[in-house]
């Protein structure tokens, strides 16, 4: 046999002639994923009250699940017995899991990061210590069985200016990648992605990317961003990281999902995104539209008999008015299901429109129109003007 059977085959189908945007096809064990792609987050093996069959109907091709949560409940043993998460949750499309490290940092009290791994103090009464090593992260991810899995990385907050510490994290992340690759025993059906670190230091990002691209992997993640840094820093790091990564492999920007960020980062050459925002905001009664979002709790929707978005063909927009959603939002859980359906469908349609415009070579116009919708007074923020100018896209003036 030749090396033709890979758990990830990435083909670039179209490239924007102006910007760095591209359209690709990622063939994974559970079907094709069209990129650029947005992946909604189904933390505990479920997406906010939506049945997997409803998600398939929305044409969702990949979703994210969280390793730390699933590792604690239902746990590796149950997942193994169930035959992996796809079977456990009845989801026959693709899955991606994170390493668990980031979730632990945000949910537990960080005790210590050592060369061995990340040590946490559990919030339970015993205050027991929990250690996540690269090997352990991969063991859980192998049991979950997602189509794309992530290395454990040494995460440093982007707001931390300690360059020495960040340099350590860059090198440690590479060493941990090698340990992850060694521990990974499902190379045939799970692709392990390294994560580029270096926070806001260009030279360190460069070191990180250059080290990582020497390993044999099927795609790369850009980590350590969207952690409170300024937008000016953010886009520059995305642009730089994307530039440093090989063209023929997918690039995944972790934790980004606002519509404006998605449009800009697609222009900078990113292929994959994930974020809890669209599903989380649904819980608080917000419906996403191209020019921002509607807070359906607001009394201005009392007599508004339009759907959330007239251009949306999701079942929520087909069957329900803003006035009705206003009446039930925050009152009954079903309201959250209805908004989640719309918000996921909104994200998927936005990505589809981006892909179509790149394929039809109208992406720069798409971006300009999109930004005008969001800033009808043309008071575009600087970072948007600058980042888009960097990839030769000019806005409506």
């Amino acid at each position, binding site marked *: 046999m030749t090396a033709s059977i890979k758990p990830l085959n990435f083909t670039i189908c179209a490239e924007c002639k102006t910007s760095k945007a591209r359209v690709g096809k990622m063939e994974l064990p559970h079907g094709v994923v069209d990129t650029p792609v947005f992946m909604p987050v189904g933390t505990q*093996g479920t997406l906010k*009250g939506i049945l*997997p069959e409803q998600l398939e109907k929305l044409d969702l091709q990949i979703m994210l699940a969280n390793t730390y949560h699933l590792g604690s*409940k239902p746990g590796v043993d149950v997942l193994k017995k169930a035959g992996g998460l796809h079977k*456990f949750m009845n989801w026959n499309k693709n899955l991606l899991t994170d390493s668990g490290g980031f979730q632990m940092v945000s949910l537990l009290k960080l005790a210590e990061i050592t060369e061995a791994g990340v040590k946490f103090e559990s919030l*339970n009464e015993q205050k027991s210590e929990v250690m996540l090593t690269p090997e352990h992260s991969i063991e859980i991810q192998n049991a979950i069985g997602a189509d794309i899995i992530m290395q454990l990385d040494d995460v440093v907050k982007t707001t931390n200016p300690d360059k020495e510490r960040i340099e350590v994290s860059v090198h440690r992340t590479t060493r941990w990648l090698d340990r992850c690759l060694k521990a990974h025993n499902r190379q045939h059906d799970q692709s392990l992605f390294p994560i580029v670190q270096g926070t806001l230091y260009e030279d360190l990002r460069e070191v990180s990317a250059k080290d990582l691209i020497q390993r044999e992997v099927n795609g790369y993640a850009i980590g350590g961003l969207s952690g409170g840094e300024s937008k000016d820093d953010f886009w520059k790091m995305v642009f730089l990281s994307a530039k440093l990564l090989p063209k023929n492999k997918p690039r995944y920007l972790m934790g980004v999902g606002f519509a404006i960020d998605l449009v800009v980062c697609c222009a900078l050459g990113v292929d994959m995104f994930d974020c809890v925002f669209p599903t989380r905001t649904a819980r608080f009664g917000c419906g996403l539209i191209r020019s921002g979002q509607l807070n359906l709790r607001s009394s201005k929707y009392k007599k508004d008999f339009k759907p959330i978005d007239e251009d949306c063909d999701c079942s929520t927009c087909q069957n329900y008015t803003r006035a009705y959603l206003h009446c039930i939002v925050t*009152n009954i859980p*079903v309201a*959250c*299901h209805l908004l989640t359906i719309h918000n996921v469908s909104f994200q998927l349609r936005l990505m589809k429109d981006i892909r179509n415009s790149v394929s039809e070579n109208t992406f720069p116009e798409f971006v300009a129109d999109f930004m005008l919708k969001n800033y009808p007074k043309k008071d575009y923020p600087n970072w948007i003007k600058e980042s888009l100018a960097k990839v030769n896209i000019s806005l409506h003036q």
Partner: protein
Amino acid sequence: MKFLVEKLSKCAPRLGILKELHGQPNTTLQTPLVMLHTQGGQVPHITHEVMKLVSKNLHILQIPLVSVYNFKEAMDYFDGAISEFIGDGESICCLTLQDPSNLTQQGFHSKGKVPIWTKNGKVYYDSRTYMDTVQSFKPDMYHLLSDGDTNLSSPQKRLTKAVDNTISFHKECLEIHRNSKNLKNCLVIAPVAGGYSIPHRKNCLDNILLDDQEVGGYLIDGLHNNGPEVEFIPFVEIQPIVEFIIKNVPPSKLRAIQGCWNPLIIIKLVKLGVDVFDTSYCRVLTERSAAMTFPIDITEDITPYEINLRQLRYIDDFQPILNGCQCPACLKYSRGYIHHLLSVQELLGPILIMIHNIHHFLRFFEKIRDCVAKDTLDELESRMEIHFQRYQQEILLPQKEPVVNDNIY
């Protein structure tokens, strides 16, 4: 909407049809039937879109005013009926007053007014404000306003008040109904009040039966204050009252009862000739993470009455809730998965249980109609008697099985 019964019997099980629904002569529903209990216009936990995966048949949605009272402002401007506003234009909507799945707070009476307890506190309705709402909602059928705040322990004074109020509401609401264009084709259900006192029930009936021509059916109201307690009301307590009412209302009219009655009581009520029930029992079970598993057909395996999916024994049980069940939850999801969802408090847990419970309950009602047709309801009753007794003994056992604890970290 019209109601036709097969036999004009009293106190006997009977089959009937509701026809000319939405003014379409060919759309019919068979009785005894179960209305889908809703909150905010949706079956609890289940959107209309998911409900259509559970059953493609036409259903009557029971819309308790207490959960939709805040729709009035929008409905005044909305060009359509409540069924369209809630996003299920094809459904038949029955507007009722209280939510049968929640305990209704007692007291706080005021002359000529009834309190309902909404998310935003107490709201009073009198005949005029109630009928205003009915007219703007334009349901396919509705209950007249009533004072059903009585139960086994209500004192005489309360019973008298409840009956007096109900009679006045009845007269006042019908007066408004008569003059309303919006409600011309709307089926009126008249509640019969009076708690557990035959004289009070008689007084109520004597007065409201004068308007029988304008009424499509009667609601046996005032037996309880709703909520999960109804599950355990003994049949012997309600039997004399239900019998009395059924003997005294014209047999051509629909007979409805509300509340989360258990399946055994439902069979007994069908035997007395009750035609309409609701699915609030499904919600009560779902809220305690219980799935109905009692066998419906004699050919089915003997299974427990219900299973509680929070119990730790289901953690790695990859069977469906009920083997052989064809509901969307049982076809694709396991007890273990649902147990996981419950243990991490994910929304999909109650959704899957509710899908199964509704499906099972609808199937139970199909079986009831089948048994009435074949005259085998007694058999179904004696089998259900065994299951329910076993279940009642089980819940009285002192040692409970361990369940997942809610604290994850």
